[in-house]
């Protein structure tokens, strides 16, 4: 579904991303993990078009998307969320969702229910709690027509109950055959949910494989703890 090949990006003198190569298979949940500064968010920004790569190719369902403007990549079928929630604060839940798709009220109620956000759709986004804003952002990302869903640290800063709900939401998505790529630091979450784990360190792919294999890998531990 999504394949990156030798993607690279320099910032100043630093290689934030270096010969990054990996695939995301359709109908799976893939987690991108790695220590801070490994380049995970940069990779996300490159895939979604917010940052232009210096080199490499990115194919979405065979179509080349590297270097396209963000809105074109979104239209090609990539939907994403951010580490620091980016809802439209001065707009209502309804208007936030309408930005994703000209949906009927029923569709909107359904997607809100599926993320366990039980608030009237006229509520202004700024009135929601941080966790609820996160759910809104996910709902909005789900509502937009997409073939790949990218979530940047969906569990960051949310309480355990919402974390559980997120697990359920993601498992349901996989059951429906959806494809998800996520960045996560919560290892329990990653272990529980992922079909594949990709470890990024210093801008390149260190290891990839099933969660259980990765957890036992010496090199991965070293990357996190330092040599």
């Amino acid at each position, binding site marked *: 579904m999504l394949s990156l090949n030798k993607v690279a990006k320099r910032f100043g003198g630093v290689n934030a991303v270096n010969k990054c190569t990996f695939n995301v298979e359709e109908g799976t949940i893939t987690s991108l993990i790695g220590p801070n500064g490994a380049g995970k968010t940069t990779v996300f920004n490159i895939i979604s078009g917010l940052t232009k790569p210096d080199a490499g190719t990115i194919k979405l369902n065979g179509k080349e998307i590297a270097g396209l403007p*963000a*809105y074109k990549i*979104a239209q090609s079928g990539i939907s994403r969320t951010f580490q620091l929630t980016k*809802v439209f604060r*001065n707009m209502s839940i309804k208007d936030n969702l309408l*930005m994703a798709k000209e949906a009927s009220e029923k569709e909107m109620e359904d997607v809100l229910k599926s993320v366990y956000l039980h608030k009237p759709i006229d509520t*202004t986004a700024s009135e929601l709690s941080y966790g609820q804003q996160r759910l809104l952002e996910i709902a909005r990302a789900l509502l937009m027509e997409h073939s790949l869903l990218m979530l940047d640290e969906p569990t960051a800063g949310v309480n355990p109950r919402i974390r559980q709900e997120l697990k359920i939401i993601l498992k349901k998505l996989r059951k429906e055959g959806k494809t998800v790529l996520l960045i996560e630091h919560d290892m329990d979450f990653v272990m529980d949910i992922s079909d594949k784990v990709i470890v990024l360190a210093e801008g390149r792919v260190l290891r990839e494989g099933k969660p259980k294999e990765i957890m036992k890998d010496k090199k991965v531990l070293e990357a996190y703890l330092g040599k």
Partner: protein
Amino acid sequence: MILDYFVSIIIYSLIYILIVTSLNLAYGFTGLVNLGHMAFFGIGAYVSALLTIHGVPWYIAMILAGAIASILGTIMAAITVRLKGDYFQVVTLGLVFMAIAISRNWISLTRGALGLPGVPSIISNKFYYMVFVFVICAVCVFIINLIVKSKTGRIFQAIRDDETAAAILGKNTYFYKVLSILISTFFAGIAGSLFVHYINFVDPTIFDLEFFVLMLSFLIIGGVASIKGTIISVFVLESVYESLRFIQISPEIIGALRVMIFMGMLLVILIIRPKGMFGKVVI
């Protein structure tokens, strides 16, 4: 006499409402702080003045005033909306200074600082002109309101709140930002035309910062991104502004005092209630 006076206040208020509402579209609803908005108002005034002085019928002159202001605005936007926030604001500010300098020096066209007197009225009777201005402004504000409440308006507001998020939802934010300025400056040009056919004169002082900051006061005190707030604040504040005329001091000092009071009010609002009276957004 008394009636004349009220008619005058109402005409100015209506035109100011159109200026501020058109500015609000770009500033309050799209987050584009176009500090050069009055450049387009002034260009509309000059275009309409020059055309009608040379015999062009007013309805063609007014449409062209809006169109030319809009075309120039679109060109400006196409080049500048990609700039980071801070710089967009100062570029647009620079444009006003440019407009002042050009209008003062392109003497063959504008007669420089002497200005263009003898701009024909559309309707000589002030009362009927007030009705005319009311109709035009009401239609324009109504159209702007429709745009704000439409899908396009929603995209404008999303861009204001978070341009990146709007982009990753598939919206071409560059296009919409330019569109916002295109519409905003069109109505500024129309307002310029209405203005110049009332005071029958135009000169480079139309581009002065004082005039712009007065409009900004209406916008911010009324409430950014609130059309209702603009309408109320213009009528209320303009009445206050005009009533200060009656204090028995020399006209020069009155002018200065009025500006100081308004600037003082605006500063107070910026400090204690930056949303303004009816606004929901702080820019």
